[in-house]
């Protein structure tokens, strides 16, 4: 998949997250890493059409996204988004969480929607949890249900905003294993993550963002073996140390 941005800027009162960004590259799974507060999540939300950039726009596979409320509603239908935590609706069961967009956004019948959900639940060993409410699920299960909800709509791109940052290592692993499988099966994804190991093993491109903007974009192997920017080198060595 190709991503392209044109004069993309995102400014808040205090901070400039993206400054007139023009880039273009291909990826199938992209990891975004960098220090906290550097604007990774904001960038992801712009790409997901959840917030409008201050100016400019972007395209996936040459389809330019018009930054207009009605167009964005349509655009979001084809993007799967997974949040850090508590991304499920607490008043609905796991199954209902998954089928809600299928039924109400895509107007599928309940039977077809359930069928789709059952297949995915079985594939990721969550079938027995289908009638539980989010509070009855572990954090890892909640995130995996949220991921199933995002992929059930067969999005052209899956966006994940630090999907494991609220989980302990064991639960993180079960989520990352699932994502790795999805990436292998050809799902295009962009993931903001702190797990360098995951970025290294499961993605083919890595992007580094800090307060000054995007510092480096490179194929995974190149990124980890010979980073060009000193900031990236420092960031990587800091994380590798522990």
């Amino acid at each position, binding site marked *: 998949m190709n991503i392209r941005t044109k004069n993309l800027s995102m400014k808040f009162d205090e901070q400039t997250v993206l400054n007139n960004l023009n880039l273009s590259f291909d990826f199938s799974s992209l990891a975004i890493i960098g220090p906290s507060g550097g604007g990774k999540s904001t960038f992801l939300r712009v790409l997901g059409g959840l917030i409008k950039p201050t100016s400019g726009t972007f395209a996936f596979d040459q389809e330019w996204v018009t930054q207009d409320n009605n167009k964005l509603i349509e655009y*979001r239908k084809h993007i799967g988004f997974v949040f850090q935590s508590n991304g499920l609706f607490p008043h609905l069961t796991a199954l209902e969480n998954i089928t809600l967009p299928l039924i109400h956004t895509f107007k599928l019948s309940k039977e077809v929607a359930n069928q789709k959900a059952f297949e995915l639940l079985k594939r990721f060993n969550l079938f027995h949890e289908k009638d539980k409410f989010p509070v009855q699920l572990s954090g890892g299960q909640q995130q995996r249900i949220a991921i199933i*909800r995002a992929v059930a709509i067969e999005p052209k791109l899956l966006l994940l905003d630090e999907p494991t940052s609220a989980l302990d290592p064991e639960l993180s692993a079960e989520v990352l294993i699932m994502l790795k499988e999805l990436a292998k099966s050809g799902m295009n994804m962009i993931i903001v993550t702190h797990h360098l190991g995951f970025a290294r093993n499961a993605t083919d491109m890595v992007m580094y963002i800090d307060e000054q903007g995007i510092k480096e974009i490179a194929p995974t192997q190149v990124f980890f073996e010979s980073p060009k920017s000193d900031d990236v080198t420092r960031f990587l060595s800091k994380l590798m140390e522990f």
Partner: protein
Amino acid sequence: MIKKLVSALAVIGLIGGFFYFSAQRAGVNLDFMQLWPYRTRLLKGFLLTLQISVYSMILSLLLASIIVVLRRSRFLFFRQFARTYVEFIRGTPLLVQIIFFFYIIGTAYSISNRIVAGVIILSIFESAYISEILRGGLNSIESKQNEIAKSIGLTHVQTLKLIILPQLFIRVLPAIAGQFASVIKDSSLLSMIALIEMAQVTKEITANNFNTYFVSYITLALLYLTLTFPVSMLSNYLERRNRYEH
């Protein structure tokens, strides 16, 4: 189950016994048969209280919803209006409002039907409280829920219908039911404008026959309980049934 029943009987027996004993010591006449001749009037009063309460619950919920929408409006004027309404109503006694609305506003705009006037006054009063319950409930639903709804492609209307309102309903229902019990009790103050609901009937009975003073008011209390207790039971039941968060 039997244990629960025995315990409940013991509690009722203890409290009832205490009042009975106190009444005996105070030399109060406890002959309830004295009220028998007034049964039709009491029944009529009871039904009127029920009628006023039900209408007021519906109207107050409606008014409260409007107030909440105004409080969250984009326009400062509406927000200030709603805020002033709530502060004024919650900051003054119902008694004063009844007099003010009935004798000044009611006369100025010729609302002569006392039942209609009573329902409107009571609804205005309760709506201020209910609007605060609704507002608190809305605030407690994380703003994140809106973003999640957005991310799965729901429209504003769908988000409200499928995500916000169902959660709001479950969260505020127990508190609203509690407020409905207040509606029933507060309706007793409408006797101020000579609405012949059950508190007024009681007043009239005791004015004619002072001997019945205590039995009349004890009966009145029991009659209110027959209305408020089911509401409270319903509230408990709904709270338990919908507790998906625990």
